[in-house]
C-alpha cells in the first residue's frame, strides 16, 4: 500500500508547495541526523520530509503534533504514510518524556525532523527554542544537528486554515553542528537558533 501512497503524497506535497531544496555547506547523507527547522505551518513537517531525496526520506521521521494529525481519518492516514512520530503536546511528563520516546523510536538508523520552537510561529522573528533539542543532543551527542530554514510555508497554509494554496516555497539546509563541550543549555539553543537565522539570507 505504501508503495503507492508514499509517492502520491510526496508528489502532491511537492506540487502544492513548489519547494526547491538547497544544500548549503551540507551534503545529503543517510547518516543519523536531527534536522531542526523553523515552524510556521502544519505542513512544514510533511513538505520538508517530501522534499528530501528518496533514500534519505525513507530513513527520516518527522516529529509532529499528535492533536493535529490524529484528527480525522485523512490526517491520520497521511501521518501514517509520512511515518510521523506523533507527540502529545498536552501530556508531557517527566516519566513519559518525549525525548526518550524519540530516541527509542529512531534507534540507530532513523533521522528526525524537529521544530524546536514548539508551536507554529506567526510573527516574522523566530520564537526562542524549547529545550528539547538540547536534551536530544545531550543524550546522543554523536548525532549531526542540521539547521533547516523553511521559507514561505506560512503563506501556503497559515495558522487556522485547513486548505493549502499552491504557492512557491524554498528549503535551505545548512552546515551540521554539534553541542560544544561545556556549552550551556541557553548558549547552545541560541546558537542553534542563529544557525537557522543565518540561512535566511543565503
Amino acid at each position, binding site marked *: 500500500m505504501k508503495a503507492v501512497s508514499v509517492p502520491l503524497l510526496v508528489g502532491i506535497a511537492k506540487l502544492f508547495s*513548489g519547494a*526547491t531544496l*538547497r544544500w548549503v555547506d551540507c551534503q545529503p547523507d543517510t547518516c543519523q541526523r536531527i534536522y531542526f527547522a523553523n515552524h510556521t505551518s502544519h505542513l512544514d513537517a510533511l513538505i520538508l520530509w517530501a522534499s528530501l531525496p528518496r533514500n534519505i526520506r525513507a530513513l527520516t521521521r518527522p516529529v509532529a503534533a499528535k492533536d493535529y494529525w490524529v484528527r480525522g481519518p485523512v490526517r491520520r492516514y497521511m501521518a501514517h504514510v509520512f511515518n510521523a512520530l506523533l507527540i502529545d503536546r498536552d501530556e508531557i511528563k517527566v516519566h513519559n518524556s518525549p525525548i526518550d520516546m524519540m530516541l527509542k523510536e529512531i534507534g540507530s538508523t532513523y533521522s528526525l525532523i524537529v521544530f524546536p520552537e514548539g508551536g507554529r510561529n*506567526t510573527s516574522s522573528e523566530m520564537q526562542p527554542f524549547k529545550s528539547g533539542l538540547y536534551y536530544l543532543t545531550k543524550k546522543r551527542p554523536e548525532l549531526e544537528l542540521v539547521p533547516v530554514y523553511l*521559507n*514561505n510555508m*506560512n*503563506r501556503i497554509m*497559515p*495558522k*487556522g*486554515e485547513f*486548505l493549502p*494554496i*499552491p*504557492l*512557491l*516555497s*524554498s528549503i*535551505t539546509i545548512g552546515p551540521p553542528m554539534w553541542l560544544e563541550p561545556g556549552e550551556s543549555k541557553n548558549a547552545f539553543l541560541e546558537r542553534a537558533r542563529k544557525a537557522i537565522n543565518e540561512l535566511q539570507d543565503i
Partner: protein
Amino acid sequence: MTLFDFRLFDQPTLILLLSNLAVLGLLFGVGRFLRRKSESELDINIVRSFNRNIVAWFIVCLVLAFALMIHWVVTVVFFWVVSFWAQREFVTLTPTRPSDHRTLFWVLLLFPIVQYLLVGFEQYALYTVVIPVYGSLFVGARIAFANDPERFLERIAKIQFGLLITVYALSHAPALLTLENLQTYNSETGQMQIWGGANGGLLLYLVVIVQISDLIHFVVDRSLGKHVIAPRVNQTRSWEGLIVAACISAVVGVVIQVFLPVTPFQVFGSGFMAMIISIMGSSGGMTMSAIKRDRGVSSHGMMIQGHQGVLDRIASLCFAAPIFFHVTRYFLEQPVVETARLTILSQIAWCV
C-alpha cells in the same frame, strides 16, 4: 482517428514553425560560441541570459507545436498550466496577509480553471467578462468579508492584477484558436471573403513576433541602447530597443505575410499588427520590471531562491495576446446575426 490533427496546421504554418525552430537553433549555436570566447569581449552574464532566453523559446515553440498537432484543447490545457505557474509566482512575489488566504484559494484554483474551461468551450461572451467583472468584484468583496481592513485597496490591486495578467490576458493566446468566420480581403474581387487558413497560424504568428521582438529588444538594449526609458524601473530597457524591435517586428510581419501567409491580414496590416504586438510586448516587460522593482527583486533574478521566472518569460506574451486577439476579432470576424435571440427580443418588444 489519427494521432495528429493537422487542421490547425496548414502548410505555411508548418514552414513558419520549422524555420522558427531552425533560427532558434542557429541562435543557440551562436550563443554557445559566444559563451566560449566571451571572457574577453562580452559580459558572461548577458550571454548566459541570452542563451537561457533562446532555450526557453525553443521549448515553448516545440511544446506548442505538439499541443497544436494533437488537439487544440491540448493547447488550451498547456496555456492553463503556464498560467498556473506564472500566477503562483506572481502571488509568491507580492506579499499578502493571512486573511487573504481564502480569497487566494479561489483566485488560484477556481478562476483560472473556469476561464480556461470557457475558452475550451468557446464561450466568448463569458470568458471576456468572467475575470474582469465577476473576478475583480469577487476579490474586493471576499477580502472585505475576511474582516481585515489593513491596506485593503493595495491587497485587492495585487490579487486582481495578478489574475488579470497571468490568467485573463494569457488565456487570449489559446482563444485565438476559437476564432471562426474570419474575413480576409480579396484583392481580385475587391470584396471581403471568409479566410481559409488555419488558426494555429495565428497563434504561432503571435508567439513568433513576440519572441523576435523580445530577442531584438534584448540585443539592441545592450549594444546600442543609450536612452534608457525609465532607469528607476529598469536600467537596460532603452528607447532604441523599443523602436528597433517594433520596426524589425513590422518588417518580419510583412515578410511572413508575403512568403508564408499564415494570417488573414493584408501585407501592411500584418506589419502593423506585428508592430502592435512588439510594442505591447515591450510594455509587458516594463510592467513586470516595475512590479519586481517595487518588491525589491533585481531584474531576471529569482523571486524565491532557486526558481526560474516563468513570469519573466511570458510577460510580453501576456500583454500582447489580448490586444492581438481583440484587434483581430474586432476588425475581421464576420458579424454573426443571432436570429433566434433577435426574434425573441423583437417579439417581446412587439408585445410591450
